[in-house]
C-alpha cells in the first residue's frame, strides 16, 4: 500500500494515503508521511537576525543545523497564548524535499494514519487560493462514547507551502 503512494500529487488520486496528523491551534492538519523524517521535542531555538517572522530560528539537531519554521505564522493561524512553546513539537522534514534540513514547529503531533482516497474531499480545496497549498480535507471517522463523529483534517502540501524557501 505504501509503495503505491508517492509524493507526487497525481498518483494519490486513487488508493490510499499515509499522512502524519498534527495540530495547529484548534485545527488538525496532515502532511504526507514521506515528507516527514522524524518528530522531535521542542528544544531551545536560536533566533536568526534579519529573517522573516515565520522563520523561528535554528536548532542543533544531533550536530546538524536545522532551520525551524513556525507553521502557524506561515499559515496565519492565530497564536494561542495558553500553549507554551516548550510543549510544541518539531516535525523534521525529509531531505528529499529540502536542500537543507528544515523542521516545522507544530502544537502537537497526533499520529501516523492511513486514509482511503474516498475519505478525502478535494473539492473544498479547489475553491481556495492556490497559495494555501491545501490538497484536500480528510474526513476522519472516530468513535467517542459509541457515537460516530467526523473529524476534519486539512491536508496540505508542505513542499509547495514552503516553496521558495526550500529552494534556498
Amino acid at each position, binding site marked *: 500500500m505504501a509503495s503505491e503512494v508517492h509524493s507526487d500529487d497525481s498518483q494519490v488520486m486513487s488508493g490510499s494515503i499515509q499522512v502524519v496528523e498534527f495540530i495547529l491551534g484548534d485545527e488538525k492538519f496532515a502532511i504526507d*508521511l514521506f515528507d516527514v523524517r522524524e*518528530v522531535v521535542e521542542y528544544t531551545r531555538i536560536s533566533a536568526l537576525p534579519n529573517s522573516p517572522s515565520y522563520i523561528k530560528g535554528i536548532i542543533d539537531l544531533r550536530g546538524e543545523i536545522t532551520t525551524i519554521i513556525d507553521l502557524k505564522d506561515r499559515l496565519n493561524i492565530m497564536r494561542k497564548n495558553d500553549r507554551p512553546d516548550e510543549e510544541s513539537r518539531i516535525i523534521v522534514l525529509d531531505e528529499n524535499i529540502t536542500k537543507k534540513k528544515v523542521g516545522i514547529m507544530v502544537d502537537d503531533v497526533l499520529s501516523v494514519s492511513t486514509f482511503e482516497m474516498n475519505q478525502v474531499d478535494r473539492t473544498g480545496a479547489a475553491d481556495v487560493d492556490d497559495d494555501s497549498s491545501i490538497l484536500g480535507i480528510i474526513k476522519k471517522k472516530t468513535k467517542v462514547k459509541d457515537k460516530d463523529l467526523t473529524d476534519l483534517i486539512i491536508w496540505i502540501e508542505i513542499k509547495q507551502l514552503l516553496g521558495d524557501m526550500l529552494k534556498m
Partner: protein
Amino acid sequence: MKEGKASKIGNMKIGTKILIICLALVIVPTVLLGVIAYTSASAALEEQVETEFELRVSESAKQADAVYTLTMDILEAGLNVLRSEFQSYGTPQIQNGQLVLVDSAGQVTVVNDNNAMVDDVVNQVGGAATIFQVQGNQAIRVATTVIGADGRRALGTPVSQPVYDAVVVRGETFYGTANVVGVDYITVYEPIRGPGGAVIGILFTGVKEDATLGVLINDFKNTVIGQDGYIYVFNSEGTAVLHPTLEGQSLAQYDFIQDMLGQKEGLIHYEWEGDDKIAAFTYYEPLDWYIAAGADWADFTGPIDAIRNAILIIVIGAVIIGGAIAVLFGRNIARRMGDLVNLGRRVQEGDLSGTMQTDGSGDEIGQVAGAFSGVVSTIQQFGSEMNMISAAASDGKLDIRGDQAKFKGDYALMINGVNDILDAVIGPLNVAAEYVDRISNGDIPEKITDEYKGDFNEIKNNLNKCIDAVNLLVNDANMLANDAVEGKLDTRADAGKHEGDFRLVIEGVNNILDAVVKPIKGMGGAMNKISNGNIPGKITREFKGEYNELKNSVNRCIDAINMLIDDANVLAGAAVEGKLATRADASKHQGDYRKVIDGLNNTLDAVVQPVNEVIRVADSYANADFSTRFSDDVAAKGDMERLKNALNNVSTQISQSIGEVNRMMGELAAISEEANASIEEVSSGAQQIAKNTGHVSENSEKANNGVVQVLRAMEDLSAAVEEVTSNSESVASMARNANDQSREGAKLAAAAEQGIGEISQSAGDVDKIIKGINEQMDQIGKIVGLIADISNQTNLLALNAAIEAARAGDAGRGFAVVAAEVKSLAQESGSSAESIANMIGELQVQAKRAVEAMGTANSAVEAGSDQMEKTIVAFNEIVQSVEQISRAIEEVASASEEQAATVEQITASVHEVSSLIDENAREAGDAAAATEEASAGIDEVARMVENVSAVANKTLQANQQFKLAK
C-alpha cells in the same frame, strides 16, 4: 703594637727622621729602577735565548726530516727497481720448495741463490737488496747483497720476527730501521704474493744507517750552542740516541726527560749536574726522535748580571751620599729644634725666665723661635696680670678686674673669662652674704629661688637649708612660747625635726619647761586643793632655790588658812548656839586674815543690835500694839534693813487689815437685814410650787393611758417581725440550694472545658495527619508527572517509529502495528497519569478543605472553650452572688430577730415608762410635801441670818480693842 710603633716614629729625633726620609728617597727609586731594568732585560734576554733554542731545534728537526725523506726516496727507488727487475722474470711461484718466477712463455727462473737480480739492483741504486722466501714460519734470505760477518752473502738467514709479523703475517709493506745481519739499515720490506695471493716471499731494499742518518748525527754532534751547549736525541723509550756522554743509555729516569716525553715539543728549564739548564725540544715522529737542544742557562745570563751589579753599585753610592747630606742637614735642624724643645719644656714647667737665642736664620725654625719668644713674653705678661687679679681676689678686693686691652685674641678672651668668673662668683657671694646678714639679724628671708650653677647652687641649697632650719627652730620656739603663755605646759617641741645645735637648743628649751612644770604642777595641785576648800597638809618635798621659797609661802598660806578656819569655826559654833556675844581674837592673825576675823566680829556686832530691836518690836506686837515701829536709832543695813522694813510693814498691814475687817462687818450686818427680806419672798414662792405639783400629778395619769395604747401597737409589730424572720429563713435555705446547684454547674462546665481541650488536641492531630497526606500526595504528584513525561517521550518515540515503519513500507508494517500499540499504550498511561494527577489535585483540594474545616472546627472548639470558661466564671459569679444573697438573707433574718428583740425591749421600755409615769405621779405628791418642808427650812434660814447679823455686830465691837497704826 702598631701604636707603639707609631709613637716610636713620632718620638724619633728630627735628624733621624730627615736621614730616613733622604735614604728612602734615594734608595726606593734606585732600587725600583734597578729591579725594573733587571727584570725587563732578563725577560728580553730569556725570550731571545728561548727563540734561538726553539729555532735551533726546529732546524735540527727539519734537517732530520730532509735526511729521512731522502733516505726513504732512495729506499722506494731501490724497491721499485728490485720489483720491476723481479717481475720482469715472470710471476712468482713456489716450485719444488723453491721460489721461482714463471714468465708468459713458461720459462721458469729460480730465484733461490740467484743473486743476479739483487746485485743488478744494488748496482743501479746502491744500498742493499734481498729476496726472501717464506719457509715454514720464517722468511729465509734466498738472494741477497748483504754480506754477513763471515764476509759471505748472508744467504739462508731468516728475517727478524717483527718484520716477518708485519709483512708475512699481516701482508703489509714495512718501513723502518732494522738490524740486518748485525748492521743497522734503513729498510723497506714488501711482500711477494703467489698466484693464490698468499705471501710467499719478501722483497727488501735497505740503506745503511751510517750512510744517511749517521751524517745527520755527526752534524748534530758537532753543533755547539752558546758556550758548551749541545744537541741530544732520545727515542720515546728514553734511550739516548745521541748524547755527548750518555749515548745508548736510558735517560728515562730524569724528570725533565719525562716532561719532554709528555709535552713532545716546547721549552724547559731543568737542573743538570748542579747547573741550571735550558732546553728546547721537538719530536720527529718518523724516526721516533726527541731532538733537544740544551745549554747552561748561565752562558746567557752574563749581561743581566752586569746590569744587576751596576744597579747595586749605584744604590750603595746613592745611599752613602744621601745619608751624608741628610746627616748634615738633620743635625743642624735637630740642634735648633732641640733648643726650641728645651725652651718649650721650661715654659711647660713654668720657667718663663729663659729666652731663645735667635741665630738670625730666616727659615721656619727661626720664625718659630721668634714666635715662641713672643708667646713666652705674652704668657709672662698674662701671668703677671693673673697674679694681680688673684692677689686682689685673695685680699678680698673682688672688684679688681684684669685689663683685657693689654692682650690680643684668645688671651684677651681668657682675661675676659677670668673677669666673668669673678663676676659670676661675686653675684652669688653677695646674695649669700646678704642672706647670712639677714639671718644673723633675725630677719629670716624667703628661700632663694634663683637658679645657680654648680657650687653656687650648693651654696644656695645650704642657705635654703639654713633658712629652713632656722624657720623650723623659730616656729618650734614660737609654738612652745605660745603654749607656755596659754598655760599648755605639757607642750614640747619635736627635737627630732632639728639637726645639730638646733636640736640641742630645742632639747634645752624642752628641759627648761620640764624643770619649770614639775614645781608649778606641785604648787598648782596644792593651790587647787586649797581653792576647793580641801586644805592639804604642808608640802614636805624639797625644791631648789626660789621653788623652795614658793613652797614655804604655800605652807605658810596653809597655816594661816587653817588658823582662820579654826577661828571661824569657833565664831560659827557660838553663833549657832546663839551666843552672839562671842568674839574671836584678831590679834592672832596677820594682814588680811586679821581683817577677816575683824570683819567676822564686826558682823556679829552688826547683827546683835537689830536683833535686840526686833525682839522689842515683836514684844510690842504681841501686846496688840501695832503702832510700835523699828527704832531709827538702831543701825540696820542690808538684810537687817529689810527685817526692819518688814516689821514696820507688819504693823502697817495689820492695822490696815483690822480697819478693813471692821468696815466689812458693818456692811455684813446691813446685808443680813436685806437677806431676811429675801427669804420671806422665797417662802411665798415655795407655796406656789406646792400648788404646781398637784397639776403634775393629774397630767401623769393622762400620760399613762397613752402609754398603754403604745404597748398594744408594739405587740402587733412583734408579730409582724416574727413573720419576716420565718420568711427569711426559708429564703436562706433556698439560696443554699441555689448555691449547691451553681457549684455543680461550675464543676460540669470545667469537665466540659476539659473535653473541649481534648477535642482541640484531636483536631490538631488530624490537621497534622492531613498535612502528612498532602505531602505524600505531592510526592505521588511528582511521580505521576514523571510517568506523564515518560509516556510523552514514549509517545514521541512511537510516533517516530510509526513514521519510520510507514516509510519502510511493507517491511515495516508489522513494526508499524507495534509502534501504534506502543503509542496507544503510551497515550493510555499518559492519560492515566493525568487522571491520577487530577485525582490527586482533587484530593489535595479536599484535604485542604478538610484542613480548613478542621481549622474552623478548631476555632469553634476554641470559641466553645472560651464560652465554657466564661460559663464557669459566670457560674462562679452565681455561686458568689447566691452566697451573698444567702448571707444577706441571713442578715435579714438576724436583723428581724434583732428587730423582734428590739420590739420586745421597746415594749419593756414602754412598760417601764408607764411605771415611771406612775412613780412621777407619786413623786409629785411627795414634792408637794417636800415644798412644805422647804418652806419650814426657809424660815430656819431667816433665823440664821438674823444670828449672823448679831455675830457681825459682836465682831465689830471686839475689833475696837486693837490699837491701830494710823
